[in-house]
């Protein structure tokens, strides 16, 4: 059977465009000849979504008011269907994942963000900072040549010297020269620059020379002065987070962007966050992925808030896809949204599910019930179950292999 044809006319007379309304990129090559984006659900949207659908068909940027409507409508399935159509016009039936592993070089952190269960003070029994022998052993013994990426993030350690970070990168590269280092959030980069006593752009250049290949999207939380003040006052403020990204992208490094949602932020603040990311992307085009992160409250001072729901996570993922028309990829980070909801998210706008991870601490300290890691076999099975073609990618989407 066919699910759609290139000239599908919906029951209300609307014509589904035969090509993606957005420019295709090397990592968004479109559906190809074999695959037609799904349109069945688009004919049965609730009336209020019709104007948004028409904008999406026309490749027109969605406004903040559109975003408000997408959050307010009861027709979540319709929102999902719109996001799904959009992602299928860009990525066809492909869902990417990567073969990676995390390296949390320290859990010592000067900050006391209210949403964090990972941080330790330097004098706590389970405070850990990896020395270079440890890192060498870890990279040698627990990474393989087939691995695509090491995800390097840590606490904001108040005493580590600049040389530590350069050594860390060099040690990883010396041990496994081909391993892509995706490391250091904007928060860490600012701390490293402070330790170095040099401007951020100089430090980023030097880190790049030492082996840094790209930056993760963490630390953005919610780009709102109000939330910043309440939950992570003292941490890099929202406008400086954005400035740091500008510096990183100007240095030729790609990065991701995240949003930690489901705590005290309002829906309006989520939309403002998306808008700020979207405007920065217009400027730099340096973001590869946007990653909506579900807040996990256990063992944090915000425990009483409880965790948000799966329907909220799916809605936020779908709206991210619809609003962020200039970001190539939306990730359903299975560690935080849960394996099952991550699978469903692949039909609500997400086209990536992250990777094997292997040993995750930050979200698990906050009560995540997902496994700490998955094999590539398990990941491909989860993706295949949803009807998608699993594609193993590297961090920069330069090497993509259907498996």
């Amino acid at each position, binding site marked *: 059977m066919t699910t759609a044809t290139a000239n599908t006319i919906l029951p209300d007379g609307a014509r589904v465009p035969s090509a993606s309304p957005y420019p295709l990129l090397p990592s968004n090559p479109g559906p190809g000849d074999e695959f037609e984006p*799904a349109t*069945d659900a688009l004919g049965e949207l609730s009336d209020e979504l019709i104007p948004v659908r028409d904008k999406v068909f026309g490749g027109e940027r969605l406004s903040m008011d559109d975003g408000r409507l997408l959050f307010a409508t009861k027709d979540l399935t319709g929102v999902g269907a719109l996001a799904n159509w959009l992602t299928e016009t860009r990525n066809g039936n492909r869902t990417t994942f990567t073969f990676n592993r995390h390296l949390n070089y320290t859990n010592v952190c000067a900050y006391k963000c209210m949403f964090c269960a990972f941080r330790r003070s330097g004098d706590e029994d389970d405070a850990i900072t990896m020395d270079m022998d440890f890192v060498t052993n870890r990279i040698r013994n627990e990474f393989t040549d087939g691995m695509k990426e090491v995800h390097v993030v840590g606490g904001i350690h108040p005493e580590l010297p600049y040389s530590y970070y350069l050594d860390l990168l060099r040690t990883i590269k010396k041990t496994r020269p081909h391993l892509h280092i995706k490391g250091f959030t904007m928060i860490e980069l600012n701390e490293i620059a402070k330790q170095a006593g040099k401007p951020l752009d100089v430090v980023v250049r030097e880190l790049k020379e030492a082996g840094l290949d790209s930056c993760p999207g963490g630390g953005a939380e919610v780009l709102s002065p109000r939330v910043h003040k309440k939950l992570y006052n003292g941490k890099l403020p929202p406008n400086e987070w954005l400035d740091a990204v500008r510096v990183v992208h100007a240095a030729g490094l790609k990065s991701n962007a995240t949003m930690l949602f489901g705590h005290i932020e309002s829906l309006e603040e989520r939309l403002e966050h998306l808008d700020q990311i979207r405007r920065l992307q217009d400027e730099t085009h340096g973001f590869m992925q946007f990653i909506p992160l579900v807040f996990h409250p256990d063992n944090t001072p915000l425990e009483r808030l*409880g965790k948000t729901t*799966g*329907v909220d996570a799916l809605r936020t993922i779908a709206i991210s896809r619809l609003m962020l028309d200039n970001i190539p990829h939306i990730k359903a980070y299975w560690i935080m949204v849960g394996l*099952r909801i991550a*699978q*469903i998210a692949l039909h609500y706008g997400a086209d990536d599910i992250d990777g094997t991870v292997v040993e995750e601490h930050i979200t698990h300290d906050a009560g995540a019930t997902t496994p700490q890691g998955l094999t590539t076999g398990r990941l491909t099975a989860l993706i295949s179950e949803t009807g998608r073609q699993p594609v193993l990618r590297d961090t920069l989407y330069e090497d993509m292999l259907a498996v």
Partner: protein
Amino acid sequence: MTTFRDIADKVHAGERLSEADALLLMHHRDLPAIGQLADLVRQRRHPEGAVTYIVDRNINYTNVCVTLCKFCAFYRRPGDPEGYDHPLEVIYDKIRETRELGGVQILLQGGHHPDYGIERYEALFRGIKANAPIHIHGLSSSEILHCCHVSKLPLPEVLRRMRAAGLDSIPGGGGEILVDRVRKVISPLKTMSEPWLEVMREAHKQGLRTTATMMFGHVETFEERVEHMRAIRSLQDETAGFTAFISWTFQAPHTEMQDTPMTGGFDYLRTAAVSRLFIDNIDNFQASFVTQGLDMAGLSLQYGMNDLGSVMIEENVVSAANCECLAEITEMEKQIRAAGFEPARRNMFYDRVDEQGGLLERRLDANWDAKNPEGDDRPWDSEVSGSCSAARSDATPQESPR
């Protein structure tokens, strides 16, 4: 050739889906589109926008079992030091706690214990009813057949005596997949499809309502899932006795089949939605938060489900297989509201009840009532909605609800 659009047109027109239609949907990857259809059907049957749950307690009176199903992590063989057989007092205590927490029913299930003949069950039910007013939703088809076997009595007599002793309704457990090829692989010693259905048929004939279940994600094919749904739909055409259909995924850990790849959320949601679309003659479809987690259960409310099952005060059979979640009422209500519905408490008949278990609103089931003109003698004059057969047994409630 049939297309998704053809099936959608059938659903819109209220026409019954064929097995080929269901199978096509089982292979369809456009999940939101299937969800829209299932939601449409849910909306027709439950236009009030409420999602129900029940506060009850799962009491597993014994884990001793001679049937040795490969998918089960709960049973112990006779003589195993980890085997147990709860004395009546233990069960009474559990029921007392259930009543104090506002629970309206117990789900009473156990292994196929070689000593459990009809007298043991009669003593159990009468004892429970004499002790507290509570609805006994108890025994699966296979336990009932096991009892027939132990006591060497015919099914109709066993059911009549159980009912007279206080059994109020029968859960659909043990249905697994009603295809003998599958049953011979996963539970060769357990009842095959026809006897399972016969117990349900006879129970409905005698006025006992039951639920129907499906456990999938093991050795069965999509065709066999559809065959299972067809068997349930056909019997429901005959008797109208099923109050609900409940499907869940096989939980492999700690069973003989632990290497079976775990089926995921996509398969669950699509199968649940297709069951709502195909089985057009059962009112209520229950989400399985125990196997899927609360997030998925909440989402399934947009895929045709209208009930979150029970807030279980105790649960042994599935949690032994390492299930992730036992939810509190507040969590359930949060999920229901997030999915766009209003939460409501119910009893086994989907009547609405209050926080103490008292009846708020009776729900009629026109199909059942048409086939049972004398009604199912729910004693609705009782102030405790859960005590359906207290009046029928010779027991007197010893405590009144608070």
